[in-house]
Structures are given as C-alpha cells and as structure tokens.
C-alpha cells in the first residue's frame, strides 16, 4: 500500500474532473455540464462533466454498470424515450439537450455505432444509402460516390466492391461492424460515438477496427466506450474512468494508465477488479 500513498483515497476531493484538452490544435467540440441521467427515479449518471477534444479519440472505461454506455447514449439523445437526462450537452457552443433541438438533424452530426453489428436486412449499398435517401439524396452518381468513399474510409471497400448488391446480413461480424461505421459516416457527422464496437468481434477483426478508427480520427472526433483496457491504451488520447455513475477521473490516457489519481482507477486499470 505504501506505493500508492500519493493516490487520493477520498474521491470527494476531486469533485470536478474536467479536463480542458491542452492541445490548442484540438479544441473542445463537445462537453457536458452537470449531466444527470435517471431511469425512473434511479439515478444512473450523477455529475458527468467532460470535455471532448476534436479529432481525437476519447475512451470511456469503467466496470459494468458504471454508466459509461448510458452516458454515451445521452450524448446524441438516444436515451430520450428511455431515461430522463438533465444538464447541458454543449456541441460547438449549442446546448443540444434542449427540448426544441431537432434531434434528427443533431444525430446526423453526432453519429453512433452500437455494440452489436446491426446492419439492416438490405443490400450493402442500400444500408449506406439509407440515411442519405432519407435526406433526399436521389442522384445516383452522388450516392455511388458517397457509398464508395464511406466504405473506403471504413476499410471495407476492397472486400465488398463487387458485392454491393448482396445482402448485408451475409457479412462476417467484423465486416458488418465496419459497414455500420461506413453507414454512420456516410452522412458526414462531426462526432462518432461508439458503444463497445469490438466486444462482439474476434481479435483480428478488433485490430482491423482499431486501425480504421485511428484513420478516421483525421476526419471525425471519436468517443468510444470500451471494456478493453488495452484497447483504450492503444487508440485513445484521453480516457475517462467511470465508476458507479460518476466520472472518477479524466485525463490523457497515458496519465490515467501510469499515474492515476484515485485508488479505484488504479485498481481498475491494473486489473485488480472489474
């Protein structure tokens, strides 16, 4: 225990864990202020105050039930009909947690990829064109071009370019998940939220997916929930540690892993629990 003498045992002392990204090249694109999430009367998130840097990957880690997925789903209002979300979610200076925000337009800018690959029972092409067609893009050439660039960005183009009209349900798990990423970036969002995107994938697919995310960072700001500590270490610049509905710690990933300020974080990243 003497090794961790400098680690604060009292979490109350660190009641604001907001980090302004220090790098001026990556200004804050999204931040939450005083965010609380309730399922009925049960509070799932108490005080989630975080700022997210643009064109960086931020990992949300923490044990099961710590609220990291709930937090992520609140960011693009996917919890609207499920939970009550109070507080502010500032996106480029606009609070998108207001009732009069057009959530459909907002979700175009803040896209999401889920834990389980969930392609529609349509062709690969139609999966990607889905959101574009909803927005009135009917021009065949425009659609073709966006489908191609999206698939290329998601590193799937070479595998499926001859099978665009085949059912997306025939893809393997890793391919299906990359299709879901291609589908999400087809509408050119600002921010990409990923909810444990690799948890249903094998190690090879996972590693390919991580490479893809590192490429995508150039164009999108990425927030990823992950159970996998090594994954957070490999790909993210910033890491937030969630425990029991609170953000216990938020810092650069290297800092969280090498010099955690809270005992629980230290235990978690070193594998002592969770």
């Amino acid at each position, binding site marked *: 225990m003497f090794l961790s003498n400098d680690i604060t045992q009292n979490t109350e002392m660190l009641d604001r864990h907001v980090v302004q990204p220090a790098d001026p090249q990556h200004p804050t694109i999204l931040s939450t202020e005083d965010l609380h999430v309730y399922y009925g009367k049960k509070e799932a998130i108490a005080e989630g105050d975080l700022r997210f840097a643009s064109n960086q990957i931020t990992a949300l880690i923490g044990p099961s039930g710590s609220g990291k997925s709930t937090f992520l789903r609140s960011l693009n209002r996917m919890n609207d009909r499920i939970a009550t979300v109070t507080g502010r979610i500032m996106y480029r200076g606009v609070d998108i947690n207001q009732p009069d925000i057009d959530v*459909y337009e907002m*979700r175009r800018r803040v896209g999401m990829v889920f834990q389980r690959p*969930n392609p529609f029972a349509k062709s690969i092409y139609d999966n990607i064109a889905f959101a574009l067609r909803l927005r009135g893009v009917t021009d065949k050439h425009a659609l073709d071009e966006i489908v191609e660039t999206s698939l290329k960005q998601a590193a799937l183009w070479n595998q499926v370019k001859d099978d665009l009209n085949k059912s997306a349900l025939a893809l393997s798990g890793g391919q299906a998940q990359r299709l879901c990423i291609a589908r999400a970036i087809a509408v050119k969002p600002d921010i990409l939220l990923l909810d444990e995107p690799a948890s249903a994938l094998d190690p090879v697919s996972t590693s390919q997916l991580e490479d893809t995310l590192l490429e995508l960072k150039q164009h999108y700001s990425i927030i990823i929930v992950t159970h996998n500590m090594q994954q957070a270490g490999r790909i993210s610049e910033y890491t937030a540690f969630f425990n029991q509905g609170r953000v216990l710690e938020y810092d650069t990933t290297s800092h969280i892993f090498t010099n955690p300020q809270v005992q629980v974080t230290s235990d978690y990243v070193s594998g002592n629990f969770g």
Partner: protein
Amino acid sequence: MKSTEQLEQQLKRHSKAAKLEIWGKVVSFSALLLIVAVVVAIIGFVASKGLATFFSNHVSLWDFLSGKSWNPGVTDAHGKPEVGALPMIVGSFLITILSAIVATPFAIGTAVFMNEISPNKGAKILQPVTELLVGIPSVVYGFIGLSVVVPVTRAVFGGSGFGILSGTCVLFVMILPTVTSMSVDALRSVPRYYREASLALGATQWQTIYKVVLRAATPGMMTAVVFGMARAFGEALAVQMVIGNAALMPGSLVDPASTLTSVLTTGIGNTVMGSLQNNALWSLALVLLLMSLVFNLIIRLIGRKGRLQ
C-alpha cells in the same frame, strides 16, 4: 467382481423416473396420433362425398366450377343437373379479398400505434379491446350486421341492403382483431437494434417505422393478412345473416349473393344423404377445404421466405 455386477444391476434397473418418461412419450404420441387421424378422416370423408358428385352423378368438373346456375334438384335443357358453383366461389373470394383489403390498413395502423407509437396505451387499452373483439361470437356480429349494417346499406346504396357489401362490413370487423394482433406480433419480432440503428442515423420515428420496421415485418404482416383471409373465407354464420343467400352471380356489391359457406349452412339440412343435392353441397365443402389448405400453404411459404431473408 461382485461390485461390478451390482453396478450393472443398478444401472439396468428401470427407475420410476424412466418408466414415467416412457408413459409421457406414449401419452403425447397418442394425442398426436388422434389429431392426425381426425384430420385424415375429415379430409377423407369430405373428399369421398364431394368427389361423388363427379364420379357417381357424372357431373363434369368444368360444369361445376364454371356453371352459373345453382339448383341441384333441377335439370337444365340438356338434361344436366344445374350444379354451377361459380356464383358461390366468386362470392366467397370477393367477400374475402374485399374485407382483407379494408381491414389491412386499419390493422397495420393499429398495430403500429400499439407497438411503436404508444406502447403503454397500446398495452393498457388496445390489447384488451382487441382480445375482446376476438371473443365475440359470430352470431352477435351477424345480428348486429342484420340490424345495423343492412339497413344502413339499404338507405345509402339502395336495394335490399343484403349483399357482398354488408358481408364485407361485418367480416372486416370480425377479422380486424386477428390481423391486428398478429401484426403486433410481427412488429414485436423486429429486433430493437434495427430501430436504434435507424434513429442513430438521424431518421425520424416515422421514417424508422416506414422504412425499417415495416419492411422487416413484411413477411409477418403478410401472414397476418392471409390468416385473416382464411378466417373470412371460412366464416359462415355472420355472412349468411347479411348476404342475402341468393345463389346468383352478384351483379353489384349490393345485390343479394351467396358464399360457399352460406349455401352449405342453409342447404345441408334440407337434402337427403346420398342424393345429388347432398353430394353437390359436399363438393362445395371440398372446395372450402382445399382453399383453406391453400391458405395454409401460402402462410408456410411466406414464413419460409421470411426466415431465409
């Protein structure tokens, strides 16, 4: 050595549980046998009676299916009995298809409301109402049809009020709950992640319902409609009360007409077993039976196609 023998004895002895196991298999297998026997017997009986018209009474199948006058006791100018079933076949199909066409949009709308738009109200109010509608006996539907629908049809469209239109109105209400509750099941079986994926791409709720949920539920919805049609096709009592029971080719939707079932229920008590009049009715029953088999086949085909997707 002794212990091996003991063990073998113990393992070979049939325990009480093992005997019960055999008993359970026997009981459930005999139940299955009974049901199969009943189905085979019904099909065999109806077929032997219904085919007698063609084999014993030498009515040609073509005359039966295409003839337009139904009066089995009478012979026509050529000395052939008048057993043209076309008016009833047309009546049955017309009333079935029309009621399905009217009921489907209402059923889908109700199902979408119950499952997608307002699951709470759907579960609390609409579900019990739908179940109640299923439980109302068909004679009650027929009676309401007779005392409400027929007079209204008469006042609005003229004629006697009896006919395909009144029958369609009554059947529409009768098959609506069936189609609705099966459509709800179809919607419920669409995985939640389809909806999430669509919403996360910025689709509105209506776009999600229309472009994703309903598309994915189409096989189930079609099964629901075909089930409703099967029910409409086989319904006898309520239809008989409002359709007018004239074995004539319906000239319009408000002319008195008849269906396979309505002719059967009105005629079967007035004929002698073994006579041509009686056999001709059994032929109608055979057509009904074959049609319900066809409906079943369609449902199975849709189900298989839905699974393949």
